[in-house]
């Protein structure tokens, strides 16, 4: 890895308030091309707020948000997309009743013809969907099936392939393995790594330190809206990461509490 890789996205001391609620305060993180930055935190730690700022759904209230070195305040998700930041949400942003190929191009449909005869390029949409999925190693039976009939892992992969296809430079993944079994999680992590190998910067939001440690290059820990730690892969072990995330002493307490019945 070269040391002077460009930062695609950089958050510096960013805060976000909802009325009198401090959702996020003083969080900094960096995403570089070809690297995976993991954001770890328990429920309510501020991971979703962080995602929404990067995705353009919310504006940050303090601090600096840089995309490729430029200070920005994103007005809406479209602007984030135009700047190359694609977000794959937990609910995957797919419309279950629509066929895979219509979902794949939703919001960015290619057309041909002009004026009143401007129409969807259906042939291109179908074949591109199939090819883009194949390139990510997903061999779908039928791109005409409603996306709601795919499994959770398959849908996740389609959403990642969609982001990669549309030239995303930064891929933000919101808990991609949260609802998946062990095997499917592995498959999804493989596609995350595949996206990284294609030169994308990836932000992986998760509360599973094992998944994070498998693929991550940088780790940012959030706790109750503030940053509880920031590490690079070489500077931290999985045990340390897990301990910090679970909150060290809290985990010790829990262990004592749970051990008691065995002594009785």
């Amino acid at each position: 890895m070269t040391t002077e890789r460009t930062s695609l996205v950089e958050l510096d001391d960013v805060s976000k308030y909802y009325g009198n609620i401090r959702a996020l305060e003083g969080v900094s993180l960096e995403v570089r091309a070809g690297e995976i930055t993991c954001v770890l935190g328990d429920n309510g730690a501020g991971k979703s707020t962080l995602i929404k700022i990067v995705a353009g759904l919310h504006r940050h209230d303090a601090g600096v948000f840089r995309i490729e070195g430029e200070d920005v305040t994103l007005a809406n998700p479209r602007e984030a997309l135009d700047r190359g930041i694609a977000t794959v949400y937990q609910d995957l942003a797919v419309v279950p009743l629509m066929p895979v190929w219509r979902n794949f191009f939703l919001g960015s449909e290619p057309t041909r013809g002009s004026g009143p005869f401007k129409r969807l390029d259906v042939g291109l949409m179908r074949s591109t969907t199939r090819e883009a999925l194949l390139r990510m190693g997903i061999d779908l039976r039928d791109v005409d099936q409603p996306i709601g009939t795919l499994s959770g892992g398959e849908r996740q992969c389609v959403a990642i392939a969609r982001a990669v296809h549309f030239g995303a430079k930064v891929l933000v993944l919101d808990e991609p393995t949260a609802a998946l079994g062990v095997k499917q999680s592995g498959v999804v992590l493989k596609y995350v790594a595949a996206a990284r190998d294609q030169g994308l910067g990836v932000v992986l939001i998760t509360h599973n330190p094992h998944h994070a440690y498998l693929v991550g290059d940088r780790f940012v820990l959030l706790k109750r809206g503030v940053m509880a730690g920031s590490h690079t892969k070489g500077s931290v072990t999985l045990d340390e990461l897990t301990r910090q995330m679970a909150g060290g002493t809290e985990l010790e307490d829990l262990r004592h509490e749970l051990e008691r019945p065995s002594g009785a």
Partner: protein
Amino acid sequence: MSSTAPPSDGIDHVDERLLRTSPLKKLLARPELGSVVGAVAVFVFFSVVADSFLRPSSLGTVLYAASTIGIMAVPVALLMIGGEFDLSAGVLVTSSALVSSMVSYQMTANVWVGVGVSLLVTLAIGVFNGFMLTRTRLPSFIITLGTFLMLTGLNLGLTKLISGTVSTKTIADMEGFSSARKLFASQLTIGGVEFKVTILWWLGLVALATWILLRTRFGNWIFAVGGGADAARAVGVPVYRTKIGLYMGVAFCAWIAGQHLLFSFDVVQSGEGVGNELIYIIAAVIGGCLITGGYGSAIGSAVGALIFGMTSKGIVYAEWNPDWFKFFLGAMLLLATLLNAWIRKRVEATK
């Protein structure tokens, strides 16, 4: 169950894991199927019980009744696919006719001026519905119920205030009346059978709506905002503009239906139209539109309107008391919805 997808165009490679889909199964997967079965049943039923139902002249009458509902059922179906209702659609037709008539009469101008002003006013009401919906984020049921009541009151109140009675003054002797009548309310004779021009409007709108739904970006967005508005917004679909556009579509068709109302009778009763909004919705639902949005077709709404036309006129041809019509319509709605649900389940199960 990919109802919205057009048939394969041969570009794709067929996956060996896919069993060959029989044409029958493809047909079963169409959202219109339930309504087509229903339409055939209604047709056979009235062919048997009413002798005059199969006469060529009856065809023109049935299609005319279907077209007056069908013209509005098309945009209402699109709106329903987009996940919203419009309860003001029925009285909006009357409002459109009233505006056209009164502007023409009061300003003693050419009727085409009234027709043009009516288009602008009707579209503005559509925009109002869409704007209120997207701004307040209240359910469209509430917003358009409000518009429905306000328009009902305005139709009666303003008409009485301006003309002194509940109907408008005749505009039949005004300039441009005959040409406007030709466009909105003329008749064509084909093979000795008289067909109203509204049938052409209806078929044209169905074709246009089908094209928009299946072959344009806007159509893709309609399915998306109805099937998952948050997901659609997250990938950059202009959800609000799509919904406002759908309400403008309802308004545009209400304008066509309203002008037909005006130019076929030359006076307009200001109390008309109440209750029709439900018939449009019924036609769309019978035609396979999912009431929760994201699924349906324009062709289905046309079949739904055809069922309406056959039932309403069939009862007359069978010389029954027309009171029975509502009962039939209700039974049809239940049966068609059950059939649609059953078919959808079967198709999904065989995937």
